[in-house]
């Protein structure tokens, strides 16, 4: 069984990201980058399936700047077998990512595509669903448990009302939620081995995908700063202000 896992290069979760001073987007210069935590969970799940003897090959793919090779390499050190890097300087929207992944699916014919449920930078939660639509394969999003049984999989999903168990036919798209597993760290011998694993480079154009953005970012600005409070003279003034200024009571 072949598994395709996608990883996204994002600002490290510890970093406090700020808007650029000209409001054209987040300032990512000099910011520490890492694998999106949900993608890391997807990689871990794939590696566990391989350790259980269910998966035979794990292919990791990333799309973005050349620097995203670092995240592909990290996934290889965690246990993926080979990598694909789709390089582009365009800021990618979810649909473009899903189209690129669809092209990779056409080439590689994986049995399962494991993705993070969303990336911590855009917080869109689009790609898995879009890829499901583009491929016409089954999709199981927000997975907190994944069991493979022959040519189908049982997935427990985290939904608003609690947990939902579904059965899907393979090939399928599964997106990882936080509780699916706890990712391992890359051991030193595996980091050294990862250096020797192959990463194939390609571009969206080579894959026949148009990644031109469909939307335009008008402005990125930080949330308004909280203003200092004031002291009120008495309860009457408080009620008055709540009613007429804050308009939270009537």
């Amino acid at each position: 069984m072949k598994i395709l896992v996608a990883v996204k290069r994002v600002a490290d979760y510890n970093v406090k990201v700020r808007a650029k001073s000209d409001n054209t987007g987040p300032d990512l210069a000099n910011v520490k980058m890492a694998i999106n935590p949900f993608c890391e969970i997807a990689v871990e799940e794939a590696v566990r399936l391989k350790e259980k003897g269910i998966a035979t090959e794990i292919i990791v793919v990333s799309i973005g700047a050349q620097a995203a090779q670092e995240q592909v390499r990290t996934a290889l050190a965690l246990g993926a077998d080979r990598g694909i890097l789709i390089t582009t300087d365009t800021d990618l929207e979810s649909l473009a990512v899903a189209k690129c992944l669809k092209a990779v699916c056409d080439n590689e014919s994986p049995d399962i595509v494991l993705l993070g449920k969303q990336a911590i930078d855009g917080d869109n939660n689009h790609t898995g669903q879009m890829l499901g639509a583009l491929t016409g394969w089954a999709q199981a999003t927000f997975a907190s448990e994944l069991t493979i049984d022959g040519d189908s999989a049982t997935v427990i999903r985290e939904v608003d009302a609690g947990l939902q168990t579904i059965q899907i036919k393979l090939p399928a798209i599964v997106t990882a939620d936080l509780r699916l597993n706890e990712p391992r760290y890359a051991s030193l011998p595996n980091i050294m081995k990862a250096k020797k694993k192959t990463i194939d480079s390609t571009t969206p154009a080579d894959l026949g995908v148009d990644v031109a953005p469909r939307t335009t970012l008008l402005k990125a600005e930080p949330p308004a700063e909280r203003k200092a409070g004031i002291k009120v003279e008495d309860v009457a003034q408080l009620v008055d202000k709540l009613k007429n200024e804050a308009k939270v009571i009537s």
Partner: protein
Amino acid sequence: MSVPLLNDRDVEFLLYEFLDTEKLLERPRYSEHSREIFDASLRTAKTIAEKYFANHLVEGDENEPTLENGIVKMIPETKVAWDAFANAGFLAAHQDYEEGGMQMPEVIFRMVMAYVNAANIGTAAYPFVATGSANLIRAFGSVEQKAKFLTLIMDGRSNGTMCLTEPGQGSALGDITTMAAPADDGTYRVFGQKMFISCADHDIAGNVIHMVLAKIKGAPPGVKGISLFIVPKFLVNDDGSPGERNDVVVAGLNHKMGYRNTTNAALNFGEKDGAIGYLVGEANKGLGYMFQMMNEARIGVALGAAAIAYQGFNHSLDYARQRPQGRLASCKDQLSPQVMLVEHADVRRLLLAQKAYSEGSLAMCLFGSSLFENQNSAPTQELRTRNTQLLDLLTPVIKSWPSKYGCISNDMAIQILGGAGYTREYPVEQLYRDQRLNPIHEGAEAIHGLDLLGRKLSLYGGAGYQFFKEDVAQDIAKAKDFEPIKNLAGKLENAMDVLEKTTQSLQQQMGVDIDRGLANATVYLDMFGRIVGAWIWLKQGIIAAEALSSSLHESDEHFYRGKLQAANYYIEWELPAIEQYAELLQAGNSVPFEMQDEWF
């Protein structure tokens, strides 16, 4: 995690700007490595430190190891951390490929240790002592000993200890009384008691391999009669599994001020028929072997000091940025919002001093590690020798400066938090207690003073000291090209003159009366330490000044300005203290020396 363990930007700066670690890749030993591998290894180290070491910092402090029916019990998180460190391959990281290691460069390995030290020094002591024991076996053990014991430590199936101190003997090892009697089968039976043994016993690995200094019956007196033995807690079966219990037991635990999750015990060897020990190398050369590993171990201790100071700095900085308190003297409006602590000048002074000590200590330790690296892997014999001699000179300083100023730094961290810092609600009080060990173990401060003044200055005909002066002069010349640090270079140049005069004077005084001449060696050590500290900061200042001469991203601009400010602070505020020391030392002021016991 709100408060980082170290500062990733500084780690990058130290490894790739302050030191040229990437240049190591040109050496055949590191041809399989790459910067990507170094960085990935450090990411793993940081993850392990955050997840498995930092998680029980307080718990380990509040629940120190206990002795139950002769067995030491500790909180289970310790074993999880040990296993994580071992499974990641770090215990074997810097060993050779042929021995199952990864040939990781020394500076990268020390940075790995810096992360776990910053997270939890009490637990980090286990891998620290284990790698020290492993290095000792690797350097001096026989092929059979390496096959039997080294692999056990490298894959985490055994820990190690260093058994030097005895109840009666700490700093003066020549008088140890632990004895080893030759047995018919070529092994030895060890009898005696060892004291203050870190990681002496625990339930985190299957076995403990003690590296024990003892005297073989009939050996010459003093340090020339000391031999080194491997004494495992359990005899080791051929498959590496623990076999029969050896005759070594925990006599009692010591209850410490800090480092509480590190077992520290008195060990009894040979309560019955004698503990089976295996002689390492030749008889009577044990202390020499031990000392050859000392540079490394001493830098390791100092690195722990640097990491604890760094944590204190990070915590107090975080607090100072978030805690509103009072208004500036210039503000007359009592209804205006309070300012954050960091806006008060005195708080910034305390933070800047901590920055100078903690970042300076980490830089100094890594610089020492780079000398250690070069001593082993520099391309020419001449360079290797030069680095050995310089490292030998600087080791007492690299051990002592971070340990001493680490304590002062952690004290300042508490001061910034005020009453909150004195409570156990915040980690700064524990960091302070943990830190206090560092000027004591692996050679107390005074021992290093004696070592520097009495031994290292004149070792190799004074070559190490000569190289030191050359290297500092070179950096001073370089710094003079940069306007922002020109004046700092001048100050260090003057300090070097003062050092030279004081050194000559003390050497002359020692020639007349060795006891009197060495009486204030600790003060000389501090003076030397301040100069090395200033040099390390000048080196960082040069890089910062160079970087700031071109246009930078705002965050880099702040980073380098901070480096420059800390260099200014250290050289302008802390270096001048040597003037007073120099005056006392050069005059041979003997007030403390002439104080008499009866007068106290």
